[in-house]
């Protein structure tokens, strides 16, 4: 028997699609990745790099064309309330109140009404929405909607949270607030988090490890350990160090401008 060390394990995972014209398109070329229990991992890359496909494979929305995806040593065969996906567009139910939305997963699980209500209220307290339980989604701001979606996920007490660009639709200020809040929630409840983003600063602020992905075909270019303690101060030099690492990796640094800046110091 081997000792189970990693929470999520991808071995030689491949995914291709056949286009309408019958051409084979490689979304993810064979790759390996291991994610530890309780770890916070960010997947970063430009569009077409396969990061969304990869998270869909891990969450069970898609099946790999080859290779295997396992969580806790078991192959992922479909969506499971133990590993919940949070979407960019929230996926809230407009006809249900905030409380009703958070209750959804608990009801689906068949948890008795009283206990479900207590758990839903406790999670809403955790995300700071205890006062808004009777509101409907259309009465909430984007940031509050995403808080409801996070509370809805946490109420089911999943061991893994998959987040697919969850803050991409929010303005910068709300995004910073929610990043900090997500970190606080993560530290309190310690799920494994896999977080897809195209925002490099967001990846540095959140991830213990950043998986850099590249397109054509979708692949892992580099895995970067971010050795900074949480919470991270976005204006500090060590933050800027990782920022430069990422920008260099994605060829976003203007060499000329950089040299000029160094001369002038």
């Amino acid at each position, binding site marked *: 028997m081997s000792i189970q060390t990693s929470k999520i394990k991808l071995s030689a995972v491949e995914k291709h699609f056949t286009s309408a014209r019958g051409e084979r398109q490689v979304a993810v070329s064979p790759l390996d990745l291991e994610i530890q229990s309780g770890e916070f991992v960010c997947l970063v890359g430009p569009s077409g790099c396969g990061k969304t496909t990869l998270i869909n494979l891990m*969450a069970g*929305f898609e099946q790999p064309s080859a290779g295997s995806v396992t969580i806790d040593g078991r192959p992922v065969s*479909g*969506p*499971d*309330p133990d*590993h*919940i*996906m949070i*979407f960019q*567009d929230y*996926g*809230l*139910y*407009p*006809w249900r109140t905030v409380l009703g939305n958070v209750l*959804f*997963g608990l*009801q*689906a*699980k068949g948890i008795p009404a009283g206990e479900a209500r207590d758990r839903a209220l406790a999670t809403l307290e955790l995300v700071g929405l205890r006062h808004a339980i009777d509101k*409907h*989604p*259309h009465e909430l701001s984007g940031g509050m909607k995403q808080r409801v*979606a996070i509370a*809805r*996920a946490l109420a*089911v007490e999943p061991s893994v949270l*998959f987040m697919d660009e969850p803050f991409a639709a929010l303005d910068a200020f709300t995004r910073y607030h929610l990043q900090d809040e997500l970190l606080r929630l993560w530290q309190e409840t310690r799920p494994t988090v896999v977080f897809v983003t195209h925002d490099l600063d967001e990846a540095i602020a959140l991830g213990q490890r950043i998986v850099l992905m590249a397109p054509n075909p979708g692949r892992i270019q580099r895995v970067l350990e971010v050795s900074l303690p949480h919470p991270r101060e976005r204006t500090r030099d060590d933050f800027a160090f990782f920022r430069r690492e990422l920008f260099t990796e994605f060829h976003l640094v203007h060499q000329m401008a950089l040299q000029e800046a160094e001369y002038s110091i």
Partner: protein
Amino acid sequence: MQHNSSARSGNNTNTEPAPVRWLLVATAMLFLTLFLFVPLAAVFSEAFSKGWETYLAALREPDTWSAIKLTVLVAAISVPLNLVFGLVASWAIAKFAFPGKSLLLTLIDLPFSVSPVISGLIYVLLFGLQGWLGPWLQDHDLKIVFAAPGIILATIFVTFPFVARELIPLMESQGREEEEAALTLGASGLQTFFLVTLPNVKWGVLYGVILCNARAMGEFGAVSVVSGHIRGMTNTVPLQVEILYNEYNYAAAFAVASLLALLALVTLVVKSWVEFRMKRQEIQS
């Protein structure tokens, strides 16, 4: 052609001078008044031309009363069946890819493109005495044509596109995120359908049901072919109107017709209310 060019300039009605706009509005209003409002008013004024007493007596007349009951029965059976069919078909078409999908879509549209008389004849051909299944049915003493089952079958056929046609574009436009969220939260396929898909399209369902019901109660052509016009037995309300009219019993004919007109008015009011709610839901989400 002149028609085309005027239609194109119609895209910028805002730039048209006021008299032109008024002329267009007035033409439309005049048309509606002549072809919709005046006939509707005529139905009611004819119906009440001999007073309330005659009106109520006409409705209470046994053959008419049995026609009303038959019409309600036909609608009570065909509308729920078409509701179930519409939900199943639209869910399958909007959410899954399967071979024969476009064929299914075409078939759903068939009753819209076929004359109702043909729809009725199909059933006479199938179940009538000279039809394919006729002898077998007679041997087993089963009456379908010229009886209530035939009327119900023809009505189902004529009205089955209403719910499905309303729901397919609605479900297709809704995308999968809310349902994926439900699946990821541990809901089963059925739970997802009843807790997410159905509440999402509930106003569309109601809309389809109203239109389906209006047509089920008002259908003439298909029902006329399969009914056999047996008084007090196989006459529905529209058929009863025709019989009374042909007998020069105008007051009674219009009294019964006023029921259908009333149904149309109620349908319109509920329909506008549902449309208003649907628009509001769209804005909210």
